[in-house]
C-alpha cells in the first residue's frame, strides 16, 4: 500500500484496521542470484539498490535476528558529510544526497531532518583544523560555514560560555547535516526492497559459507542451505566472525559504543552539537528526549552493553558543554557493537573468494553512510567493480599503505 494523504484518510475512516504488514515473511528458496547477509541498514539498502538500480530481482537478505535489531536501531541518528580526506568526502556527500531524496524515492517517512551539525572548537589549534576541514569540504563542493563564538552563542545560548578549561571559540557548521529516524530507515528500505521482490529472511543466521575452488557457492544458514553465486557480507560488529567462515582475518576489532537518552522536554536543541574538547555529540529527538553519546569503551567486546566509566565520562562531557543537562534525568542507555578498523575508515571490496563481497569496518559512524554503503555494495556485487566514490575503501590498503585515517588515531580504537 502506498503511503499518501489518501491512504491515511481512508485508514482513519476504517478505524486504522486496514494496515497490512510492511513486508512479507517468505520461506527461503533453494537458490538466489544474490544473498546479502545482515538485515541492518546497509544490507537492506544494498538489496533495495540491487533490485531498483542494478536489475537483480532474485535476492534474499538473511538476518540472524529481526530487521533493525542491530546498530541501525541503536545509533544516535546523526548524518553529515563533513569529512576531511579526498577518499571520504565524495562518498559521504553521495550518501547525504541520497538521504535528501530517500523519503520520496521509497515512499516512507524517515524523518530526515537537516537541522545542521555544529562541531565546536576550543583552542587555536582546533580552530585551524576546523578551517582546514571546512576548506577541504568546499573544495569538494560541500558547503561549510565557520561560526564565531558570538554566532554560536546567538544560536545556542544555553552552552557553557564561561568554561575556563574548554572555552567555546567557535564552530564549523554543516547546515545540510542533521538526523534521521534510524528505525524508519531499516523499515523503509525493507518495505521498498520487499516490494521489488526481495525476500527478507529473518531469524536466519549465516553459520557457514560453501566455497569450492576459490568461489562461493552458497550459504549455510540456521534455516538450511541456500545457494547463491554472489554473497555480500554486511554484518557490522560481527564482520570478523563472519569473515572467519571464509578463512579470512580482518583489520578489525569489535568494540562497544553506548548511547544515552534523557527524559523528554520541550524543544531546546535545534541542531546537532558536538563538543570538541573530548568526543561528545548531542541532539534532541522529535519525541523530546536529548540523545547523546561519546566514544567506544575501548576494549574488545561483543556484549552490547558498556561499563560505568564510560557513563561517567559521557556525563562529565555533557556537563562541561551544557550544564543545564544536570537538571535532567537520564532515561536509558544501550550499547551496540562497532566494527572498528585500524584506520577508522570502512571497507567495501571484493574478498579473495570469488563471488564473496565485504562491506564492514564502519566504526562508530556508519549510520550516515547507510544509503551510499548500500548503493556501493550493490554496485560492487552487480558489476564486480567498485563504485567510483568507494574506490578508496579497499581491503588491501593496510598492506599497501593507502590508509584513510581521518583522525590520525592509528590502531588505537578509542581514538577514532
Amino acid at each position, binding site marked *: 500500500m502506498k503511503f499518501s494523504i489518501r491512504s491515511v484518510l481512508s485508514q482513519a475512516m476504517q478505524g486504522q484496521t486496514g494496515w497490512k504488514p510492511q513486508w512479507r515473511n517468505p520461506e527461503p528458496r533453494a537458490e538466489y542470484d544474490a544473498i546479502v547477509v545482515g538485515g541492518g541498514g546497509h544490507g537492506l539498502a544494498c538489496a533495495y539498490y540491487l533490485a531498483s538500480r542494478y536489475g537483480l530481482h532474485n535476492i534474499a537478505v538473511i538476518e540472524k535476528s529481526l530487521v533493525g535489531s542491530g546498530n541501525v536501531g541503536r545509533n544516535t541518528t546523526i548524518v553529515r558529510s563533513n569529512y576531511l580526506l579526498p577518499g571520504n568526502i565524495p562518498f559521504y556527500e553521495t550518501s547525504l544526497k541520497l538521504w535528501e531524496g530517500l523519503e520520496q524515492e521509497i515512499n516512507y517517512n524517515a524523518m530526515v531532518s537537516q537541522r545542521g551539525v555544529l562541531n565546536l572548537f576550543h583552542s587555536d589549534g582546533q580552530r585551524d583544523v576546523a578551517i582546514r576541514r571546512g576548506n577541504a569540504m568546499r573544495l569538494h563542493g560541500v558547503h561549510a560555514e565557520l561560526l564565531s563564538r558570538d554566532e554560536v552563542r546567538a544560536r545556542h545560548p544555553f552552552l557553557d560560555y564561561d568554561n575556563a578549561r574548554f572555552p567555546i571559540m567557535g564552530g564549523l557548521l554543516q547546515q545540510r547535516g542533521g538526523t534521521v529516524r534510524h528505525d524508519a530507515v531499516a523499515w523503509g528500505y525493507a518495505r521498498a526492497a520487499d516490494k521489488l521482490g526481495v525476500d527478507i529472511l529473518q531469524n536466519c543466521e549465516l553459520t557457514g559459507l560453501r566455497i569450492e575452488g576459490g568461489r562461493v557457492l552458497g550459504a549455510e544458514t540456521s534455516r538450511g542451505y541456500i545457494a547463491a553465486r554472489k554473497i555480500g557480507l554486511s554484518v557490522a560488529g*560481527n564482520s*570478523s*566472525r563472519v569473515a572467519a567462515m571464509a578463512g579470512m*582475518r*580482518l*583489520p*578489525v*576489532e*569489535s568494540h562497544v559504543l553506548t548511547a544515552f537518552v534523557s527524559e523528554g522536554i520541550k524543544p531546546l536543541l535545534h541542531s546537532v552539537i558536538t563538543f570538541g574538547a573530548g568526543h561528545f555529540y548531542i541532539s534532541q529527538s522529535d519525541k523530546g528526549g536529548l540523545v547523546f553519546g561519546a566514544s567506544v569503551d*575501548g*576494549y*574488545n*567486546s*561483543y*556484549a552490547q552493553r558498556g*561499563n560505568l*566509566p564510560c557513563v*561517567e565520562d559521557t556525563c562529565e562531557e555533557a556537563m562541561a558543554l551544557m550544564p543545564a543537562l544536570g537538571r535532567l534525568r537520564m532515561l536509558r542507555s544501550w550499547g551496540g557493537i562497532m566494527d572498528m578498523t*585500524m584506520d577508522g575508515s570502512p571497507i567495501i571490496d571484493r574478498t579473495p573468494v570469488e563471488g564473496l563481497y565485504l562491506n564492514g569496518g564502519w566504526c562508530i559512524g556508519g549510520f550516515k553512510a547507510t544509503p551510499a554503503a548500500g548503493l556501493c555494495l550493490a554496485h560492487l556485487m552487480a558489476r564486480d567493480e567498485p563504485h567510483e566514490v568507494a574506490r578508496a575503501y579497499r581491503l588491501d590498503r*593496510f*598492506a599497501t599503505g593507502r590508509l584513510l585515517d581521518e583522525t590520525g588515531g592509528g*590502531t588505537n580504537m*578509542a581514538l577514532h
Partner: protein
Amino acid sequence: MRLTCPFCGNRSIAEFSYYGDATLTRPGSNAEQSAWVDYVYMRDNPAGPHSEFWYHEAACRQVLRVERDTRTHTILSVQTA
C-alpha cells in the same frame, strides 16, 4: 567490570588502560612485510575468551595479561605479563 591486580587487589576498570590483543608476536627484524602487516593490522577478534593486555596506569604501573570473555565481560584470569 573490575580487575583483580596481583599487586593492588580488586580495582575499578577506570584505573587501567587497554593495550589490546596479547597473542600477537612481534616479527623478527628480517621478517617479510606480510608478517608485519599481520602483526600491526590483523586481528582474530574472537567472540569468547580473549587474551589481552591491561596496564595498571593509575596504581602499580604493571602490564597485566588478562583472559576475558568478550561476550559477557567475565574476567577469567589476571596474571603479570
